[in-house]
Structures are given as C-alpha cells and as structure tokens.
C-alpha cells in the first residue's frame, strides 16, 4: 500500500512538474557512443531539473532513421531535436525536413562560426544558411600495433609508425611487416565498399580530387585521381599487404587479435580499443592521422550535428525553441566527455582546452582537423545514400583484384551520372 501511495504521489509530482519543457529527442547513436550520449543527456537533465527535460529515443542508424524522419515531418509528428549527419544535410534541405538555425539562434546559444572548423561549418551550410549545430567530427584514422611495428623495425622514437609521409615510406612499412611474419600488415574492410569509400575519398582528396564539380560526377581529371587511389589499394592487395574480402567486424577482429598490424577505421572504434586495453587484453596501440600517399594530407570526415525538424511547432519565439537551443548549446559546450567516444568535438573551445590536450589518442590525431574533407554537397551523398551503393558495387571487386581500376572508374562515372 505504501508503494501504491508512492506511485500515486510520484504521478502527481510529475503532473505538477509539467511547467518544465520536455524536449523530444531522436538519435541514431547505439553502441559505445550511444552509452556516452545517454550519460550526457542524464547530466543535462540533472543540470536543468524543473526547467528542461530531454525525452530521448534511439532509433536504427542509416536509411531507417532518415526515412522515419521524413515521414514524421510530413505528418507533423517529428521530434523537437534530432541528430543528423552533416553529409545528409543537402538532401534534407531539398526535402524540406529541417529548419535553418538563424543568426538570432546562434546568438542565443552563445555560439558562432568562430567556434567551428571551416570544413565543419561549411558542411552544415546550404546556400549561406546553417541547418544544424555540429557536435563532432568523426574522421577515419590509422590504428596501429606498436609491438608488431617494433618487431618489424618500423616504429619511431615517439611511438608512431615510420613512413607516414609518402607512398614509398608507407609501403616500406607494409613490406617490412610482411617480412616480419605479419599475416596482414594492413587490415582493410575490403568486403564493404561503403566503408572503403572513406579511405578512397581521402586518397582522392590527397590529390585535390573532387567527386562532384558543377553537377557532374568525376569530371575532368577527377576520374584519373579516383583511378590512382584504386590502383594503390589494389596493389596492396596484390602484394598481400592487406586483408581481402574482409567485412567490418572481421577487420576489427583481425586488428585486435594481432593478425593485422594496422587498420584504417573510424575514430568511433577508440572506445573498443580503450576498453580492451583496460581489461589488459590488448597490445600497446595507437592511432594517427592517415598516411600521405599522394601530394598532401587529407582525411575524409563526417559530422554528427543537431538539427531541428520542420513542421513540428518548434518555431522562433516559442518556449520550446528556447529549450531546444539550450540543449544544443549545453551539449556543444560540454562535449569534452563526448570525445571519450573517439570523436573530435566540433566546438573548438573544447578541443583547445587543457583537458582535451591530455586525452589520448584524440590529441594525437586531432591535428587532422585542418586537413578534413567532407562529402560533396549533393542530394546523392551522405551515409547510406545512393552514391554509396554505386561506389560499393565497384570498389569491392577492384580492391580484391577482380576488376581493373580503369574499368571500375568508367562504370562508376556512368552510374553516378545516371542517378
């Protein structure tokens, strides 16, 4: 009976607390970073008790999430705030599913262009308007096994791999690892072209190549630059320097079990490594910016950002809008904790902080922020977008040595321009 009274009392209290704004939140963050986001949300709710409460739901990443957003906006049932990939923003704007963040909003949040890296700011900007508040950037990095590199004699004094500055140097490292008896010098997600897109696009960027220019895919010498990138990767396969037909989980497993000495993967795998290392089940590891294979450093990145859906009543001047802006502002300013998920916080105030510079391996690779490239701004790009499928179809056979890179580029060019 006491319990019942307790429940009843709790219910009344909850009703009484209705004066506080409830912010309905959708995200697609599951796994390691999802856990960290939930704890950030709890901190937010604790700090805003009685004023704002976030009611969060985690949905399936990728196409399911974005389809649901689209339908919910159309019927006016969208959440108040949601996470969004910066790479999907051009598509979202053309579909009319998100609201612009106005100058007044930025001012109210106490954030501005100066707080973000240029590439990140541009990624959320369409036609001069911003459509989301970047939370982080998540590039790909090179993970490495210090013990194996040392065995192969390719570890620098400072604990980083040798030969990161040129193709010859990096290939020397790969060859040395092979000679030292390492089965796979480089663990590559060669069974998943969607994933390899990130590496290949980075290598194109290292030659100043662009995917989309004036509405045409792979125009001019961009096709050749894609071909160069594919050729390098195919040669690594032919020299047996990288794992073939390996899917994402298998690649991570090859690296963590010590069969692959290095691995190119997203920063979101940092928690996996950290947790394994804490349990004493991992070798001495590190992560650095991608090697420079062509002319200069360049790394693919995407950004998790917060967006306000359209058609949901969160209009300017409403109390709900104020609450949503407070959420975005607070989380952006407190995103240091988010960095433990491996991501680089987008707010440069956070990355400039003393605590962040102590955080490893983030501090080592955060230099790459200056060399980030984002997806081309197009309705076709973005994670789980149509461009991914075209690429994947030809990347997989090419990377595993079944298809000639020139042929693959020709097909990709045809299909992309045919979308």
């Amino acid at each position, binding site marked *: 009976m006491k319990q019942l009274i307790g429940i009843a009392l709790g219910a009344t209290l909850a009703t009484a607390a209705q004066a506080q704004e409830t912010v309905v939140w959708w995200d697609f963050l599951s796994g390691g970073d999802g856990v960290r986001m939930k704890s950030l949300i709890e901190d937010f709710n604790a700090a805003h008790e009685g004023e704002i409460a976030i009611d969060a739901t985690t949905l399936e990443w990728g*196409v399911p999430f974005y389809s649901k957003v*689209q339908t919910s906006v159309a019927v006016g049932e969208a959440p108040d705030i949601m996470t969004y990939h910066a790479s999907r923003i051009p598509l979202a704007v053309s579909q*009319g*599913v998100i609201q612009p963040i106005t100058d007044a909003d930025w001012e109210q949040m106490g954030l501005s262009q100066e707080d973000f890296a240029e590439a990140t700011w541009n990624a959320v900007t369409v036609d001069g308007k911003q459509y989301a508040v970047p939370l982080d950037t998540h590039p790909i990095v090179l993970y490495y096994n210090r013990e194996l590199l040392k065995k192969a004699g390719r570890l620098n004094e400072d604990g980083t791999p040798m030969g990161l500055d040129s193709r010859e140097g990096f290939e020397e490292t790969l060859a040395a690892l092979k000679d030292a008896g390492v089965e796979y010098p480089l663990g590559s997600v060669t069974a998943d072209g969607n994933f390899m897109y990130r590496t290949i696009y980075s290598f194109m960027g290292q030659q100043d190549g662009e995917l989309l220019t004036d509405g045409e895919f792979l125009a001019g010498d961009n096709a050749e630059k894609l071909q160069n990138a594919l050729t390098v990767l195919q040669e690594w396969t032919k020299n047996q320097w990288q794992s*073939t037909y390996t899917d994402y989980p*298998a690649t991570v497993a090859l690296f963590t079990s010590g069969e692959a000495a290095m691995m190119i993967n997203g920063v979101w795998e940092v928690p996996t490594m950290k947790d394994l290392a804490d349990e004493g089940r991992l070798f001495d590891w590190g992560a650095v910016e991608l090697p420079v294979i062509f002319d200069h450093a360049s790394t693919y990145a995407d950004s998790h950002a917060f967006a306000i859906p*359209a058609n949901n009543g969160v209009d300017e001047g409403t109390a709900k809008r104020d609450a949503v802006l407070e959420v975005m502002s607070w989380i952006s300013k407190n995103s240091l904790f988010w960095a433990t998920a491996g991501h680089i916080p987008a707010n440069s105030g956070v990355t400039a902080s003393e605590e962040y510079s102590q955080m490893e391996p983030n501090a080592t690779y955060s230099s790459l922020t200056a060399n980030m490239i984002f997806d081309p701004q197009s309705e076709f790009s973005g994670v789980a977008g*149509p461009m991914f499928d075209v690429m994947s179809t*030809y990347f997989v056979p090419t990377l595993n040595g079944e298809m000639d890179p020139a042929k693959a580029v020709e097909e990709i060019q045809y*299909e992309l321009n045919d979308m």
Partner: protein
Amino acid sequence: MIRNTKNDTLIAYVLIAPFLVIYGLIFVYPTINMFILSFQDAPLISFGPQSAEWTGLDNYTRLPDDRRFGTAFWNTAYFVLLTVIPGTLVALAIALGITRLSGRIQSLVLALFFLPYILPVSVVYRIWDWTLNFQFGIAMHLFDALGIDRIPIFKTSTWFMPAVAFVTIWWTCGFSILLFLAGLRAIPVEFYEAAELDNAGRWTVFRKLTWPLLWPVTALVLTIQLILQLKIFDQVYLFTTGGRPNDNLVMVYYIYQRAFQNDDGGRAAAIAVVLFVMVIVVSVLNFQLLRLAERKT
C-alpha cells in the same frame, strides 16, 4: 418461421464491413495511389518544397534503358529459376522420405526439417554469414582442410545468387514439406496395397500413383513458391549490404533503392507496378499451365 431475407443481407453486409474497410484502406487505396504516383515525378512523401509533377509515361519509358532495372529484372528471373522448381523438388524428396518413417522418429525428423522455417530472416542471415564468412566462416576452415581455395561467396556476383537461392531453399522448404506430407497422407493406402498386389516397382508406384495424385499439391506449392520468390528482398538486402548491391539488385530491392534511398517515389512506383503486373501474369499463367498439365495426366 418466415425469414426476413432483407434483414439477412443487412447482417451479412455488417459482418463483412470491417474486412472491406480494412482491405480498402490498407490494400485498395494504396494500390490506386501507387498507380497514380507512377505517372508523376514525385518524392516518396510530398511535403514542403517538393511537389509532384505529372510526367505521363516517362517513368515507364525510361525503364528499358535503365541499367539497374535490367540487372534487377534478370536477377529476379535467375533467382526464380534457381529456387522455384529446385525448392519444390527438394521439399518433395524430403516429404517422401519422411512418410517412410513412423512414430517419434518421424516427428523428430520432420521437426528438424521444419525448424529453419520458423527462424526470422535476420537469424538466417547471421547463421549463414558466420558459416560462409571469408575470414572467419566455419565453411572456410573446411575448404582449407580440403585444400580448396577460399571463396568470398557473398562478395562475388557469380556465387551470390546461387548461394542466396540455396539459403532460401534451406530456410523455406519446411512449409512446402508440410504441404506435401498432407497431400501424401490424403492418398488412400488401398491404392498402394493394390499396386503391391500387381507387383509394381517403387519407381512405377511413384510415377503412376503418387506423382499424379499429388499433382494438385505440387501445383499449389509451385504457385506459392513462384509468387514468393518473385518478391524476394530481405535475404538479398541483408547479404549484399556493403558488398556489391548494384550487381545483386532484385526488383523489390530496386524499388526500395529508388523509394527510400533516392526518394524517387514516382520511379519506384513505376517499378512496383511492373512487378505487380509480372506477378499477376506469371502466376495466372503458371496456374493455368499446371491445370492443363493436370488434365493431361
């Protein structure tokens, strides 16, 4: 007692009304909408700046030159070829074997063959991915032991469709086995006793007795399989994600790509209409042909 027929009719209408309403709402209405959408250049959901535009037959006339549509069409045909008749034959063979057993053994064996059918497709995918994974699959260790080169089964276009067809047969034949068993049990034992008296061999009994008497069930299984396999999507989607999706397209997958990934409602609807018509034509044709065959035997 004189019955009021007018009242009866009314009651009949009231009783079927819920069905009609639901059927109309979730089948007839969307189908009509799909046809309308297929003549428009429209996003999947019309909202805000995007609006639908009438384009006449454009969505249809561009299909013959659409390479992905071609891939999807031929892959679907290939998949149907690989699954419908082989799947039916496999189920028939297993059912014939099971009828020869009796008692608990029979139930046990039947249960073993039926088990895969109750698995959700995601579990089926996991099992076979673990078995055939290029790096860690159990089957690959078997290949190594036998000295055969490892094959990245779901990553090559040569092996993809046959492998998915194999998995599909493994997964779905339990249901066909049940139908065949029911059919076999409906054949009176006396027929077999008479055949035995006539000293008929096993093959003759099957050819002259079991096969013709089982034909209606076989025809049913073939038709069900045909319709089901034309609509293949889940297995292909799961096994191809990240691999070579555009080489392994099937019709429903292509509809999904156009509708949900490209947000091209109009073109997706046109492909859906084509598939709709295909299913109707093929299944009617199939059923008529099978009936014809039945009359001949």
